[in-house]
């Protein structure tokens, strides 16, 4: 019967570390959301671009909400937009920017869905200024098999509202949401501040906390560890700016064909770092198109393809300010000792309050992307990184790192059991499940 049709599809996490043949339902009408048996294990799937297997898993039916991508109501006076949860963040931003609004918090991949942004509680270009996605959601609607649709906001069901952010889709399938909007900067100029190490970067990041765009890029090779640049996007005179530009056709694809060889070996990493150091690590400033600021990954197709068939892994740890300098020093020593291959090292400033499994807090986050995560040496470094981060009160980003050990996660997140119980309260029979939920026993 229509809507109940399931396709047997090979699915892969964005980092290529988890693959599974899964049954996928693709409802295109509201009533078909109820077509699956209520007791069938399932999980909602939006853009399918999460680094880990959050929208699929062995034995679970992935309910692809791509057809639910419609804009439902736009209030240009109040600055709110109600949208179906399958809408892509890139499409939403283009619609809003053309009307003088935008969502300040957007993940790097433009094909991430609004539902995915809620389920992962993503952060944007400066979480210290804008918070995470939850700060911009007024209300949403959940669908649960056998129960129908549930309207959720802070007043109506604060527990369910909070649990659904970084709830990884386990509280139900998010079907629509009402978002708060902000006025975009009329223009952006990107200021580059070279830094000698991570400690200096942290100081610059704290000083520029109110910039619309704020992050650091760093060389992660042992000889130059931490050297890099803090990039500060500032609102500027419109004349200095470039148009927002871009359309759906220029968005990074959800799935990127890997190069037949790995570009990010020591030679490739060295060449890229040298080139970026020459190009970026000079003080100065230049106009920055808003589309480039919002979706930097659109220019990173070759970068991701360059990880080859073996894929990559991203580790993100948020370390409190008082411990960051010591953490950076310990990490630098670890890199000098173990000499891992790190293709990217980036830093961001956070200033929020962690809740449940969300990636938030007051401190500096480091994101590291590594090729060949399955190799013994790389895996050993990732484990060492986790130990150093935990020793410095670091908090991991569960939606990013697919090789995180569940025991390490429990040690890193003091409130792990409470957060898990909160999710279980809204998923009592465990019918909503995914590879991420299985691996971390959520």
């Amino acid at each position, binding site marked *: *019967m*229509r809507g109940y049709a399931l*396709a047997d599809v090979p699915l892969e996490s964005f980092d290529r570390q988890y693959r599974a043949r899964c049954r996928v*339902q693709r409802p295109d009408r509201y009533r078909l959301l109820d077509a699956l048996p209520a007791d069938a294990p399932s999980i909602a799937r939006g853009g399918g671009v999460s680094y880990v297997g959050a929208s699929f898993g062995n034995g679970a039916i992935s309910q692809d909400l791509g057809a639910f991508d419609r804009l439902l109501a*736009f209030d240009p006076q109040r600055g709110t937009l109600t949208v179906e949860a399958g809408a892509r963040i890139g499409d939403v931003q283009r619609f809003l920017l053309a009307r003088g609004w935008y969502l300040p918090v957007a993940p790097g991949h433009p094909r991430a869905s609004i539902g995915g942004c809620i389920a992962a509680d993503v952060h944007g270009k400066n979480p210290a200024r804008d918070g995470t996605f939850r700060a911009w959601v007024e209300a949403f609607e959940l669908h649960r098999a056998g129960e129908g649709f549930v309207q959720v906001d802070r007043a109506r069901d604060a527990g369910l509202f909070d649990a659904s952010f970084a709830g990884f889709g386990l509280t139900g399938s998010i079907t629509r949401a009402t978002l708060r909007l902000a006025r975009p900067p009329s223009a952006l100029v990107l200021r580059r501040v070279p830094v000698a190490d991570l400690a200096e970067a942290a100081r610059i990041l704290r000083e520029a906390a109110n910039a619309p765009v704020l992050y650091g890029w760093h060389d992660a090779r042992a000889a130059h560890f931490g050297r890099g640049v803090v990039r500060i996007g500032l609102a500027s005179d419109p004349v200095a700016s470039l148009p927002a530009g871009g359309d759906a056709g220029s968005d990074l694809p959800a799935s990127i064909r890997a190069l037949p060889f790995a570009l990010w070996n020591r030679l490739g990493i060295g060449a890229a770092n040298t080139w970026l150091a020459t190009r970026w690590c000079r003080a100065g400033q230049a106009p920055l198109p808003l589309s480039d600021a919002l979706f930097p990954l659109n220019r990173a197709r070759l970068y991701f393809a360059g990880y080859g068939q073996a894929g990559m892994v991203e580790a993100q740890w948020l370390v409190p300010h008082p411990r960051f300098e010591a953490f950076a020093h310990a990490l630098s020593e670890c890199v000098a000792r173990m000499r891992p291959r790190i293709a990217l090292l980036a830093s961001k400033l956070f200033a929020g309050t962690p809740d449940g499994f969300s990636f938030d807090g007051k401190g500096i986050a480091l994101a590291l992307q590594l090729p060949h995560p399955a190799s013994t040496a790389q895996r050993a470094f990732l484990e060492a990184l986790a130990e150093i981060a935990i020793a410095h009160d670091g908090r991991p980003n569960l939606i990013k790192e697919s090789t995180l050990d569940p025991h390490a996660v429990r040690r890193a997140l003091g409130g792990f059991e409470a957060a898990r119980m909160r999710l279980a309260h809204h998923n009592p029979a465990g019918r909503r499940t995914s590879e991420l939920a299985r691996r971390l026993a959520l």
Partner: protein
Amino acid sequence: MTSLIVGASSGLGRALAQELAGRGHELLLVSSDARDLDAIAADLRLRHDVTVHVLALDLAHEADPGARLAGALDTMPALDALLLPVGLSRSDDDFGLDAARIGQLLAINLHAPLAIVQALLPRLLASRGVIVLFGSIAAVRGRGRNVVYAAAKRALESLHESLRQRYPPQQLRVQLYRLGFLATNLTHGVALPAPATEPALVARIVAARLTRESARWYLPRRFGLIALLVRWMPWPLYRRMRG
């Protein structure tokens, strides 16, 4: 231009709604579920700044769908195009259906298009409008699967001929598309012998041809060749293709 799309909430119907809204058409969208229709209409209004009307209608149980549509059109500008991408198929349509399910398939695939065309003919004749019917590659030659569906789609070809025989091109234009496999929920999870085409691509072609004269086309075009092969295949060989 004012267009009416029956079966507008999914697949080709939804793609046509998006395409025609992008071309500035005022639309009346008809489908069975008000919530789907409201979502599509809201989206089209916001993205394209066009006027969109909706009518929720259960074609499987509506005795006189033409009258309901005629009533809805009373408050709208003259109708220029009637598009009928409405359809329902079942995986168990292989001589295993009871009378009620046969009736449901016929109601949606045949009775509704017939009744709607007849009810709206006076309006379309007045505007020298266009009727767009959607047949199927499944109707080229009867098989042991899609039995009722294919019979209904073949009847639509008869309707296309009847309309063209009765009304000269100066009064009414009638277009029929024999559709191959489209990447919709109808084909999701089905092992197809040929690649499925995106509905948006088909919708773009259909919209561009709305101003053309009466005709019959295969979409995608390669299905014309496939239909030829199927039609002229020797019976003993065709009979063995039961998979």
